[in-house]
C-alpha cells in the first residue's frame, strides 16, 4: 500500500512461485510486468513488452542470466539491455534496444516490485510463512468487509481460522485484489490446507459482497 508520495513497494508474487530459470507475468498498478529469475537465482522485473514487435515478455524463456522473447528470441539482461538478436547472430544489438526495468526486492519470501522510488525497503513480515497467492474479483473494501477487519498500513488483513490467525497481504490490481496468504509459522499439511480453504472462503464472501455492491 502506498505509504509515501515518492513511491511504494507492491508485493507481486511469492518466492516459491518463481523458481530459478523461469518467467511469469505479474500485475502492478501500472500494468503487466515480466517477472523472472535467472539461472543463478537473481530476480528481475521488466516491462511486459518486447520493443521489437510488442510481444509480452512474460511469455518468454530464461536461459542463464537472460530473458528471451518467445516471438523472435531477442534476449535481454537483467538491466534490460538487448544482448542478442538471433536473426542477426553476428550483430551487437544497439544500446537503443532496451526494456524498462523495475527495482525488485525479495524479503520474507515475498517478491516486491517498486513503483516510483520508495523511500524505504519493503515491510519485513517477520514470522510469517507464505502459503499461496490467489486473485479475487473484489476490491480491498469488499475483502475488509468479508474479513470484518481493516487492512494494516502494510496492507495486511488478519482473519481467524480454526488453525490460527491467517495474514492476508493484499495488493490491489485494477478492480481485482491479489491476496498472498501468510501463516504464523509451520502448521503442517493439515493446518496449511485448512488455512488455504479459509482463504478461499473469504474470497467467496468478498466476491459475493463485491457483486452485491456492483448490482446496487
Amino acid at each position, binding site marked *: 500500500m502506498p505509504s509515501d508520495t515518492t513511491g511504494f513497494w507492491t508485493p507481486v508474487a511469492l518466492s516459491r512461485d518463481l523458481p530459478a530459470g523461469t518467467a511469469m507475468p505479474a500485475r502492478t498498478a501500472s500494468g503487466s510486468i515480466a517477472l523472472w529469475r535467472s539461472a543463478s537465482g537473481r530476480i528481475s522485473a521488466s516491462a511486459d513488452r518486447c520493443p*521489437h*514487435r*510488442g510481444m509480452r515478455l512474460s511469455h518468454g524463456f530464461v536461459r542463464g542470466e537472460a530473458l528471451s522473447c*518467445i516471438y523472435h528470441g531477442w534476449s535481454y539482461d537483467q538491466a534490460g539491455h538487448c544482448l542478442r*538478436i*538471433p536473426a*542477426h547472430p553476428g550483430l551487437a544489438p544497439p544500446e537503443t534496444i532496451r526494456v524498462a526495468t523495475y527495482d525488485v526486492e525479495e524479503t520474507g519470501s515475498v517478491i516486491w516490485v517498486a513503483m516510483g522510488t520508495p523511500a524505504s525497503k519493503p515491510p519485513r513480515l517477520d514470522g510469517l510463512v507464505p502459503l499461496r497467492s490467489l486473485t479475487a474479483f473484489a476490491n480491498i473494501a469488499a475483502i475488509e468487509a468479508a474479513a470484518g477487519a481493516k487492512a494494516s498500513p502494510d496492507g495486511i488483513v488478519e482473519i481467524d481460522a480454526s488453525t490460527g490467525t491467517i495474514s492476508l497481504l493484499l495488493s490491489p490490481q485494477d478492480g481485482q485484489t491479489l491476496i498472498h496468504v501468510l501463516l504464523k509459522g509451520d502448521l503442517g499439511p493439515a493446518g496449511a490446507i485448512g488455512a488455504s480453504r479459509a482463504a478461499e472462503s473469504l474470497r467467496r464472501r468478498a466476491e459475493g459482497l463485491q457483486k452485491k455492491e456492483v448490482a446496487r
Partner: protein
Amino acid sequence: MSMQAMIDEWYPVGLFSQLDRAGRKTALMGEPIDVACDADGNARVTGRDGRALPVRVRYGHVWSSLGEPKKELFPIPEADQPGRRFVDVGVVRVRCSPLRAVENFLDIAHFPFVHTDILGAEPHTEVQNYKVEIREEEDEVWATQVKFYQPQAAKSASGGITTEYMYRVPAPTCSVLYKTCPPRPSEWDVITLFVQPLAEDLCDVWPWMALFDDETAMTDLIHFQQTIFLQDRSILENQIPRLLPLDPGMEIPTRADLTSIAYRRWLKRHNYTYGAQLVAQ
C-alpha cells in the same frame, strides 16, 4: 483509426463451399453483414438494412466490400494452373488487429521459436538479406529472394531444405506467399492469408492454398496449415499495443523485418489505418 480508405477494398467473408440459403451472419469493419446463396447457387452478401453489397467468388472464398471497389480483386495466376490442388484451410478467429495478422504472416525470423522443428530450428536462426520493393504499377508490396533453412518445410518435403520464398501484399489485409515446391522445383507453392476485419482488434483469418502435391491427403494439407496458423495465434493475441503502430518509435525493426517495414510504409501511404495507430491521434 479511420476506415475510410479501406471501405472500397475487397475482403473475404466466407467459404464458397459452405454457403447455404439460410445464410451466415458475420461482419465487416463493425457493420453486420449476411452471407448466403440464392436458389441458383450464387453468393449474395447483404449489409445493414438489407442493402446488396458487391460480391466476387474467387480462390474458394466469397469476397465482398462495404463500398465500391475501384479495382477488381487481385489476380493469382497460379489459381488457374492445371494440376494444382486447392485447399480451403478453414476460418480461425483471432483477437488481434487484421494488420497484425498480415504482418506476422510476412515474418520469417520467428520460425525457429514459434514453428519449432517445422519451419525452423535453432541454431539456424539467421535471416539472410533479401529484396523488398513496392511495385508501383500493381501497387503491391513484394519481397523476393527470401531464404530460410527448414527442418520440415512442407508435407511434400522429405527432410530439411533451404526454402526460398516470395511474399506479396496485394491488398491491405491479404498476403500471398510463394514457396519452394519440392515435387516441382521450377514452380512455386502458393499459400495465402485472406483476413476479414471484423473490428480493429478482431479478425477472421481464411488461409487458402494452391499446391502441386499429388501425394498428401487433403486433410493432412489442411492440418499442416492449421498447425502453423494456430502456433501464430497465441503470439498475435499477446502483442501490445493491439493496433499496429504505423509510426516509428514504439517498435524497433531490424534488417530481417524489411517486408514488414515496407508493409507499414505502404499502409500509411494509402491511409489504410483500420487496425492501426498513428503517433498523432
